[in-house]
């Protein structure tokens, strides 16, 4: 299929990415169109009745209790460690722009 600028803009909206920054919309749309056109090669394959494979894991681990670890590398992390990488924080919380 051919990819229009509108399709590219929609993908950008879904991905929360703006196309004004850096490479322009024209370039991006052209490249996306080329890539998607190439991907249409898949239409040549007969996949009728083939079970999709989303993961190469052949054995799935059974569910486990969701209990916090008390020792080792999985032990609970101090709040200040978690907050240390936040661009903005206050009173032990993440700060985001006011929306109301």
């Amino acid at each position, binding site marked *: 299929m051919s990819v229009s600028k509108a*399709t590219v803009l929609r993908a950008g909206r879904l991905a929360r990415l703006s196309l004004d920054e850096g490479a322009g919309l024209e370039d991006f749309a052209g*490249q996306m169109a080329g890539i*998607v056109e190439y991907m249409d090669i898949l239409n040549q394959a007969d996949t009728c009745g083939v*079970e999709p*494979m989303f*993961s*190469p894991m052949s054995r799935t681990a059974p569910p486990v209790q969701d209990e916090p670890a008390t020792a080792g590398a999985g032990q609970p992390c101090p709040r200040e460690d978690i907050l240390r990488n936040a*661009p903005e924080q206050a009173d032990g919380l993440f700060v*985001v722009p006011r929306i109301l």
Partner: protein
Amino acid sequence: MAELYELTLSQARSALLSRECGAMELTRACCARLRATEDRLHACLSLLEEEALAQAKKLDESGPEAHRPLWGMPLMLKDNICLRGSPTTCASAMLRDFVPFYDAEAAARLKSAGAIILAKNNLDEFAMGSTTENSAFGRSANPWDLGKVPGGSSGGSAAAVSAGQAFGALGSDTGGSIRLPAALCGCVGLKPTYGRVSRFGLVAFGSSFDQIGPLARTVEDCARLFEVIAGPDPKDSTSARLDLYPEGLPEQNFVEAAQAGGRSPEESLKGLAVGLPKEFWEQEGLSPEVAQNCREALQVLERAGAELVPVDLPHQKYAVAAYYIMSSAEAGANLARFDGVRYGLRAKAAADLDSFFVSSRSRGFGPEVRRRIMLGAFVLSAGYYDAYYRKAAQIRRLLRDDFDRALSRCRLLAAPVATRTAWPFGFTENDPLAAYKMDLFTVTLNLAGLPGLALPVGLGAHSRLPVGLQLMGRPFDEAALLRAGAALERLVPPLGAPAALA
């Protein structure tokens, strides 16, 4: 005697245990080599020299400790593997200031085995690329030719290891990111079976593809690193739990397997069925010099008693398309977490919450990462999901079936790692599709989730640059790859030191 940095990891270990040298001496040798070569290579994004020397000093006070398999060994980590207290940037402006407060499981295992982490290596941003040119902090160069790419995305790790800056490194392989740079830089790289190594603490790109694996200068060195990092981890639900395989997994003694291969190559190769997928060997665009070196390696295998078996992977021609659809979809989902709230770059002064997200993400991510995220959004969006994402997942099943058929007749398969030797900087600039096609020979294995070992088989007759052969195997049968790889390594002439650093 050779300079200390020129030793293999296995030789360095012997030197440490016999007290011919100490951890401090070894670390200093790597630091000196790093200083002598880093200006030209730019293989590292952060240097941990001070911490490394302090740790070496401490180790020397009490060691050597023979029961710790990497005791006193200077190593490096690709900068998408978390290391507590050290920057982990993924070569992205998004994570320029990110300092994790925990170790990736693989990093933790290296540390408890006594390793010294000397630096974090450059990569393509979030591991998306085949050249290391997509790094937000500048590209790395190939130690064999400074005007050429080292391959990617673990290009910094491969360049560093080949140059002797460290005795080994961990990289990650989502679509060839360990094997391709190993081949282009002339070192050895192992992409483990999906589930063999914990992904805990590896910044996620394609969660059903990503695997951490070792790069080193010999097959045995790779086996030593692999044996330390392999094994189940409760913190990664996709790591293979041994209790799920009551019938048992193939041989787990990786170092022994590699040593056996190197010690008695003919014995290891005699009667070994090696499949040659015709779709790789007859690929249009396979450069004559790569074909020649790889075919010579096959002759070596055959002379040593291996049986070469022609096999088919009929769905190989769909691999690149299927891989980029599925891995981009997973990348789009994984990278949704970068919203400027909990970590990563935050744009200043946004009018509302949505433009806050858009502007933080658009500034933080480079062009290739944005392209993949958008591609992922496209193939998962209403109206396109079935035609692209689901279809690619069906192809993935067919490809795995192809492999299972071929590997039921052969213990392993052999093929070139790439269609050509290292290419010049800028070669695929502005043509992302051309760049994606450079992964033609590597993505298939990631779709199938199987293990692969890349090892050098000589210098191209024309380019005089390293050529890599990859051995591909059955699930969890890395030992067979390491045994055969070490045997082949023993039988082909070594590459010698990288030409551009001589």
